[in-house]
């Protein structure tokens, strides 16, 4: 009788505890992946090749005739010092 009551008590406590754990850990679709694989991939894919400056805002560029843009990576770049 004593063992049966103790076993019932343990089972009831485990049931209540697991319920409480679930309620205190709700699922969030917005939660970040751990480790943050997605953002690392995004950063790597947008990393510039060559030495071309990456300003904070998009620059408005005007080139006069005689100056050509190129797809080659820059060997160096002009920047604020």
């Amino acid at each position, binding site marked *: 009788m004593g063992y049966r009551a103790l076993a019932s008590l343990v089972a009831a406590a485990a049931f209540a505890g697991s319920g409480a754990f679930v309620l205190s850990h709700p699922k969030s679709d917005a939660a970040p992946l751990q480790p943050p694989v997605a953002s690392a991939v995004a950063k790597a894919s947008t990393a510039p090749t060559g030495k071309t400056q990456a300003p904070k805002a*998009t*620059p*408005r560029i005007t080139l006069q005739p005689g*100056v050509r*843009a190129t797809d*080659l990576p820059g060997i*160096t770049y002009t*920047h604020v010092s």
Partner: protein
Amino acid sequence: MQQRAFTALGGDCELFGIDLAADVLERGEAWVHQMHDRLTRFSDTSELSRFNAAAGAWVAVSDELEALLRESLRAYEVSEGLVHAATLPALLAAGYTRDFTLGGTPTTAAPPPPAPLPELLEVRTGGAKLARGAAIDLGGIAKGWLADRLAAEMGANCVVNLCGDLYARGPGETGEGWPVGFGDTTVLLHDMGAATSGTTKRMWGPGLHHLIDPRTARPAVTDLTEVSALAKTATDAEIFAKVGLLLGATEAPAWLQGRALGWSLVENG
């Protein structure tokens, strides 16, 4: 391609060349360090500091300082007064009194806007005179001029980049020009200079940065954070970039048109 990177003039410097004579890059770096020591305002014993300390009297100056002072007067004329080498008192009042890595110091009352540079600075062969109370900071003009001068010495196919002020001489590796980052693109430069002026890097407090507007003797208030320019020389590119920044997004394009070979404007926000 031969290349060499080092730190001088308060920033990163790079030299590139093709078919250069032996030791050219090493000698180029040594010359830049030597010029830094002579032209820095952060050492009381530099030639520039001694020249500033002697304001009010004629003093003998080296060929290099004489050339740079003449270049400062030319920059003042070309920029219609916006590139003014005698804004050092205003820069000190704004708190830029020591090497930038040590941080700013408390601001003091801004001096009145400086008189026109030709009224403050006289240059003759082997000598120069600064008006009493005036003081010179060569800043970007020195970097541009040194890049032009070093590229002319290094060889027929080279690039000299001194803290972002650069000159690309010759056709580069492909024969079409040297590929150089400009804004968010890359351009091919052949016998051209490039420079960038901005308010965000040397900043030590809200509205406190190293670009002094000579019209107010205070750090410039502008809607541009960064302007890059292309020109026939690095010195002119430096002048154009600084004027563009001081004029702001509305006026800069019209001023740069017909002067610069290209420009990149980055607006606030």
